[in-house]
């Protein structure tokens, strides 16, 4: 327990003093408020700067709160995830590469404590960012488009946070196993390309972590199938567990590649 607390404090200080706890949530807030505002004023924006020919008629779709939350989710799923992955993909590999890990690895340390502390702090940043981003999105959505039931909103947010725990577990585990560039590539392929593939041919299956964000949105319009959601939930937790174990194993195995 002592080692875990020490590592947790160290990771916390790192994320705090490198301002990751501030600027990543700000990115998410900006991503979150863009869609509600932009869509609401789209007609005015087009009229003002669109340079449309005389008599051009636009048909604006009737948007509901759920559409804007979906649009914000889409932003988090692309730009948001890239920011998070890029920020934490070096958490093990960079320390090995620049030699700061040497003076830790020569001590009788617990790699389990080390891995968990890194994963927990990275996940905290991710979750704080998601809360901030969705709060921003929600604020303007309610202001401009109408109400969303708070309980359903919380269910969606909670579901998205499970997905983020999975993303960060993959990121930190890959960082433990590979050098930074390779870790980044593999994580991006696994998470972002995986999401794209799932959205293209994902009609054939229902239980996969990639669909968690979609199921989260279905909580809002009440179209979620609970049995499928729970299966997905349990599968994701199991995968998180697998990646944590894999990550701890590799963090120990790769310790000897540290620069002395």
């Amino acid at each position, binding site marked *: 327990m002592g*080692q875990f607390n020490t590592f947790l404090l160290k990771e916390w200080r790192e994320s705090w003093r490198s301002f990751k706890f501030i600027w990543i949530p700000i990115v998410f807030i900006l991503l979150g408020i863009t869609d509600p505002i932009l869509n609401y004023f789209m007609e005015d924006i087009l009229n003002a700067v669109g340079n449309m020919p005389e008599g051009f008629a636009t048909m604006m779709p009737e948007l509901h709160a759920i559409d804007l939350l979906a649009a914000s989710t889409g932003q988090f799923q692309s730009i948001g995830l890239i920011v998070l992955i890029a920020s934490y993909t070096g958490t093990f590999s960079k320390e090995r590469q620049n030699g*700061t890990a*040497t*003076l830790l690895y*020569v*001590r009788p340390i617990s790699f389990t404590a080390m891995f968990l502390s890194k994963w927990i702090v990275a996940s905290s940043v991710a979750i704080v960012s998601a809360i901030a981003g969705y709060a921003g999105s929600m604020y303007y959505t309610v202001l401009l488009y109408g109400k969303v039931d708070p309980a359903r909103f919380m269910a969606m947010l909670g579901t998205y946070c499970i997905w983020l725990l999975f993303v960060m577990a993959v990121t930190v585990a890959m960082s433990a196993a590979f050098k930074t560039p390779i870790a980044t590539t593999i994580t991006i392929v696994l998470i972002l390309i995986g999401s794209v593939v799932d959205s293209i041919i994902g009609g054939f299956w229902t239980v996969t972590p990639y669909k968690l964000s979609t199921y989260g949105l279905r909580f809002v319009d009440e179209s979620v199938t609970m049995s499928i959601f729970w299966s997905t939930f349990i599968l994701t937790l199991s995968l998180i567990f697998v990646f944590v174990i894999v990550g701890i194993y590799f963090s120990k195995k790769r310790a*000897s590649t540290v620069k*002395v």
Partner: protein
Amino acid sequence: MTCIQVAQLTKQFGEQKVVDHVSFTLEEHTATALIGPNGAGKTTTLSMLTGLLQPTNGQIIMPGVKDIRGAIGFLPQYPQYFSWLTAFEYLEMTANLSGMEKRKVKKEAQKILEFVGLGAAMNKKVAAFSGGMKQRLGIAQAIIHQPKLLLLDEPVSALDPVGRREIMNLLKEIQQQTTILYSTHILNDAEEMTDQVLFLRNGQLVEQGSLHQVRTKFDEPRYKIQFVSSDEARQFASQSELVAKAEQNIVYADIREEKPSMQQLLHRLASSPYHVVKVERETASLEEIFMKVAGSDGTI
């Protein structure tokens, strides 16, 4: 009491044996210098002792110690720190990770920082530290948990003469409480603080023993006689029955089994017409021994 015993330690990367069947024993409270040219395997040897590298073969035994990592302190050649931590926070972290009792940590960290001369800078971020301050912090993190064995990789090579002197003095003080093994290629430093020297060349331990033993073995004592002019030197060298050679106005005369004695030499000089400036007996410096060991072809 034996502090650590290393037997047949070998590390192979592919075909190349970087460390080749190295065996030695360190007694408690001694200082040992690991000497060798670049690429001799000094850092690899130290890395294996710290547990960072797994040996291909061989054993490392510390009597009465279960986890060696808890009983050693290590200072790498280029220590890297988390620059966003202060010196105190860094030391607190390393003490905790070394398993020091929680209530002792803060007091001990402060004491050690003052001991290495970082008392005034302890709440400054490491990012703002100079090379010498980083080396002090490196020593602090290596000794905070009172290790039985302190391993230092080129502890003073990167420092200026003032910093080097200060760190050497610090190490001499530390030596009274622990066993030190340090690698170096700066032989003046080794000469200053050594009970035992280990010469590594191409991964092999080619020579070991106390500085005195090694010196006796490799020493080629000689007289250095300085004359006023180089003519005199040349003439003296050619006339006398000494094994001697002249270099400008200096004659080097070899001593074989204490012959000739200083008395005989002075006698000869006194009866010669030459003007002598200086006569002295020279012993090989560690540097010359190093050149001999490093340059010889492994037959020793």
